């Protein structure tokens, strides 16, 4: 396994940088083109804005998975849980902001609580009306969960497929828990019918553009964080752990500590992605915890090219573009296409889409 892009020579690195800047500029134009009159040749529809905004948050999730899997060999099949927890934290904030505008008109309690006969807000809902607190929790809760699960798993040297199963079970367990009405998270309906965020009415072009740019900034920021890690000595320690963990221990590195460190960062980035995702799609429910979601996200990374950050982003965009097209063109085929794609990439493109380009660059 030599999928790391650590020692790219200078010229391709420059090309890569220019390509990335170009991609960010093109993405940044989308909400602007949306402002053009509908008759204009360059006009971009609302649908494109909202779906691209959603894909950007997926790309952040893909980066997070790639950091843990592509670099450090931690194949988590439960990253969707961190994403969903970030989403739920943001969803709680959005629910609190509905205030008395709910169907029952209760001043503080969200509709589902009134319906379920709650008398007052559960203690863990307190503070979520304050944006900075809710945003902090969107990052903190996934990070804390990763810290606990990671500590227990890595300390006991659970690796490989066992870790994958463990994380898969984790997201499944959370899904079942969030389905329960008495958890206080809206049961199987989750949260929806959001009204506003930071004083902006949602579902307006302005809110769409602001959320889009916020997501883009978050993506660029996450990319920067992951690049910083991957080019540092820590990045080389991660690759070494991925390829020969026990050897790294004999060099005096506590691999438990190092893995925990990236796992937590990865979970925090996933939480960030989820927090940006929910206001854009307008709903969060326990379905986001479903094991299939986490597996799908891993497939984005595999298709794009694990162990390269560009690959993760490219994979998230291309697989989701394919999904959007195929689920309208031939909805029944999507799962077969997804499975087929994964098999094909594993067999013929072990380095993913990025491998197609870098092969040209290397030779």
């Amino acid at each position, binding site marked *: *396994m*030599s*999928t*790391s892009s*650590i*020692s790219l020579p200078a010229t391709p690195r420059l090309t890569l940088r220019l390509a990335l800047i170009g991609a960010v500029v093109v993405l940044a134009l989308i909400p602007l083109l949306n402002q053009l009159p509908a008759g204009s040749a360059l006009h971009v529809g609302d649908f494109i804005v909202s779906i691209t905004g959603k894909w950007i948050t997926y790309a952040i999730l893909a980066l997070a998975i790639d950091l843990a899997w592509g670099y450090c060999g931690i194949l988590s099949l439960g990253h969707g849980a961190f994403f969903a927890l970030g989403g739920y934290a943001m969803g709680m904030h959005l629910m609190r902001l509905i205030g008395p505008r709910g169907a029952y008109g209760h001043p503080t309690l969200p509709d589902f609580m009134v319906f379920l006969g709650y008398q007052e807000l559960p203690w863990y809902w307190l503070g979520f009306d304050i944006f900075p607190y809710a945003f902090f929790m969107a990052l903190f809760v996934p990070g804390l969960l990763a810290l606990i699960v990671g500590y227990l798993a890595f300390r006991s040297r659970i690796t490989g497929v066992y870790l994958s199963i463990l994380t898969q079970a984790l997201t499944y367990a959370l899904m079942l828990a969030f389905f329960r009405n008495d958890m206080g998270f809206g049961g199987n309906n989750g949260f929806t019918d959001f009204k506003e965020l930071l004083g902006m009415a949602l579902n307006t072009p302005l809110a769409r553009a602001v959320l889009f740019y916020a997501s883009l900034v978050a993506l660029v920021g996450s990319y920067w964080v992951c690049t*910083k*890690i991957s080019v*540092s*000595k*820590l990045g*080389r*320690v991660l*690759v*070494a752990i*991925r*390829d*020969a963990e*026990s*050897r*790294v*221990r*004999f*060099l*005096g*590195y*506590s*691999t438990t*500590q*190092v893995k925990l*460190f*990236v796992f937590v960062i990865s979970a925090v980035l996933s939480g960030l992605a989820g927090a940006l995702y929910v206001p854009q799609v307008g709903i969060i429910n326990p379905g986001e915890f479903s094991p299939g979601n986490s597996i799908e996200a891993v497939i984005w990374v595999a298709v794009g090219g694990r162990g390269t950050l560009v690959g993760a982003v490219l994979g998230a965009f291309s697989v989701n573009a394919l999904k959007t097209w195929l689920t309208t063109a031939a909805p029944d085929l999507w799962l077969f296409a997804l499975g087929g794609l994964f098999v094909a990439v594993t067999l013929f493109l072990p380095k993913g889409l990025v491998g197609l380009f870098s092969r040209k660059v290397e030779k």
Partner: protein
Amino acid sequence: MTSHTILYLDDVSVVFDGFRALNNLSLFVDQGELRAIIGPNGAGKTTMMDVITGKTRPSAGTVKFRDSDLTLFDEAAIANMGIGRKFQKPTVFDALTVFENLELALKAPRGPVACLRWVLAGEARKRIETTLEEIGLTARAHDRAAILSHGQRQWLEIGMLLMQDPELLLVDEPVAGMTDQETEHTAALLRRIAGTRSVVVVEHDLEFVRALDCKVTVLCEGSVLSEGTIDQVQNDPKVIEVYLGR
């Protein structure tokens, strides 16, 4: 146990499913000593290294490095105490370059944040370059370790061991796959390191052991069969019987 003893194994046994890989093994290594360990396959040489480096926990007995009870620590902690190990089968990091492999082994703070902030300063770079020179891989410094030959991988492993700057070096079959000239070079290198460090070498190649010119311990069935100079042990009837058959 004298004050000069750096490594102290007393009455150590390791039992795997009823099989005694080590059987009341006692071994003392002095500070600055060079020690060769030989023995037939299955004598417990590698298990002994595993016990010292924390990979295997002994079923019974005492394992001490200076005053620390090694059975209480994990691999990383033991490595940081100053025990370096070169494995029988060279395991270097294929995805990294020769230079990066050495940089990773270089003695420096090992925490994740320290690694994130690590900057390769002049002195560290110089140490890596000196080691590259020593192991004859200067020209290959920026090649991926994956494309090295077996002998070069051996050298890289030895280089990584040197970078760790350990007080005790455990070297498992260092010259397998090396040319005669390289073998001589390795023997000279190990002799030079010993004196300031303690070195324990496990090797099959008796010519190489002779070149090390040090005290030899013969292991057999998990315990010490004989100890002395290479000539003494080669003439020991018990050793002859084990090596040449009845």
